[in-house]
């Protein structure tokens, strides 16, 4: 890796509004962070590039300039935003959550599992689609 490569990475970060870039290869480690005062981004597990039954979006770098944390699925099943079809969704963009807030239900084998936020903040994005399948590690919500 030489200066030319590092410059190319910085340009890429600027273009895509990324705050942090980190890489490690063969004992060489590089971390580039945008400006002072930015909070570190919590890296999310990426959804696979292969076609998925869940049609989950690949977790590419967030377009938002402020860092967010992902709430990911701990299981395989069907994602529901509300307790029942006519009930209000557990959370929406803007809802404040803490560790114990139930954010959604994932149904697996006819069992409705309440999923907790396990983080605190404000829902920035609802990523998973209602009543669509989700897989292990798939991003459900983004929290700021």
């Amino acid at each position, binding site marked *: 890796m030489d200066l030319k490569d590092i410059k190319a990475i910085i340009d890429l970060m600027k273009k895509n509004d990324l705050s942090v870039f980190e890489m490690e290869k063969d004992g060489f480690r590089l971390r580039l962070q945008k400006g002072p005062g930015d909070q570190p981004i919590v890296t999310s*597990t*990426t*959804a*696979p*590039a*292969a*076609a*998925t*039954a*869940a049609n989950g979006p690949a977790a590419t770098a967030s377009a938002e300039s402020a860092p967010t944390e992902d709430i990911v699925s701990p*299981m*395989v*099943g*069907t994602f529901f935003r509300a307790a029942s079809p006519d009930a209000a969704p557990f959370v929406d963009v803007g809802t404040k959550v803490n560790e114990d807030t139930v954010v959604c239900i994932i149904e*697996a*084998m006819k069992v409705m599992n309440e999923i907790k936020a396990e983080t605190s903040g404000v829902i920035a994005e609802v990523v998973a689609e209602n009543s669509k*399948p989700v*897989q*292990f*590690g*798939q991003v459900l919500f983004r929290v700021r």
Partner: protein
Amino acid sequence: MFEKVLIANRGEIALRVIRACKELGIRTLAVYSDADVDSLHVQLADEAICIGAAPSSESYLKIDRIMSAAEVGDVDAIHPGYGFLAENADFAEVVESCKIKFIGPPSHVIQKMGDKDMARACARKAGVPVTPGSDGVVQTDKDAAKVAKKIGYPVMIKAVAGGGGRGMRAAHNETSLIAGFHSARLEAEKAFGTPEVYIEKLIVNPHHIEFQIVADSHGRVVHLGERDCSIQRRNQKVIEECPSPIVNAGLRKKMGNTAVKLARSVGYENTGTIEFLVDEDRRFYFMEMNTRLQVEHTITEEVYGCDLVKEQIRIASGKPLSPHVAHAVPRSHAIQCRINAEDPANNFQASPGRIDFYYAPGGRGVRIDSHAYTGYVVPPYYDSLIGKIITIGATRDSAIDRMRRALDEYYVTGIKTTVPFHAAIMRSGEFREGKYDTGFVERMMSSETFQLVPPRAHLHE
């Protein structure tokens, strides 16, 4: 015929099953762990669902997640591959209870034959010769000593829930027996969840000869001959061949009929393998039954002209045995070498990591079953098998010559593989003569003249 099958496995066998499904026009759903995102079986399946973190216990062994994936994917059947949950009777039962077809025998048969001691009892009942041993589980070290004295040393202490060559301890006298009894129980508890052990007479340097069974759901049971799996390192098979150089037509008929008799007596369905130990006097004894497809099914396929995975799927869908399988006759000779990501020059230390360049041999009579490719990262969480080379020859000699040629072509950089080890065996006079037994590998490696064949230096600049 099924419309969609979930493959509850990974690596080369997941690829094998996906290929068979594709040829049958069946849609495939792969399940995978975080570590297998870029695996070939995930890339080639029609759909893929991530079921957990890298460790097997967090993914490939998670029955609930696999069943969720099966439900989400709306599959008709599940193929368990080998290892993982393939011989887990609970898993088979859960699959059946969800009205999904388990591609294998019924759960109660897996249960019966999976318990090694119960399997011996079934064999005895069916009039199949078994190695002299304890009449069931041995509870205390005093009982163990009594049994061992009666059948005569040396003996082997074996876990009832064991398999794959694990949970075993050899004992040549009472002192080592008592010690072995306790350490085998400890290992069994940790590895298989139950410490129960039984005792068998240890046949010194036996030949390991196994018979392939295929049975449909209409009561038809046949055998597709034998495989010789005596070339083992630390109780793990490394090379297999079909037919066995020490089995003649008369012995094949006798052992084959015995295998079929046993399979029939337990109501077997789908593919399975009955393993025998054969001593120097060609006496054979039932050892255990594997109620699944085996790693070495490939060489039987080549010699008997059939696709065993497709046949598994056909049988599971209710079809009777295919005529070409029911009437299969052996032709030519096949050898398989298991290529592991291990360094044979360094006590076979595991060698996971990125394959920088991968070139597999080809040409007439060479079959490669591998999920490896250039740039693939071999994960450290699972077994080290990265591929199988199978060579077919009109004669045993030509199959060996072909394997030697194929191994010399094999080019893998970035990780170490056991190719040099296999190349050395293909040059061994003892192997060429076909007179080897399960002590062969240790003898060869401790010999002063033993030399690994250095791997190909380069293929490109």
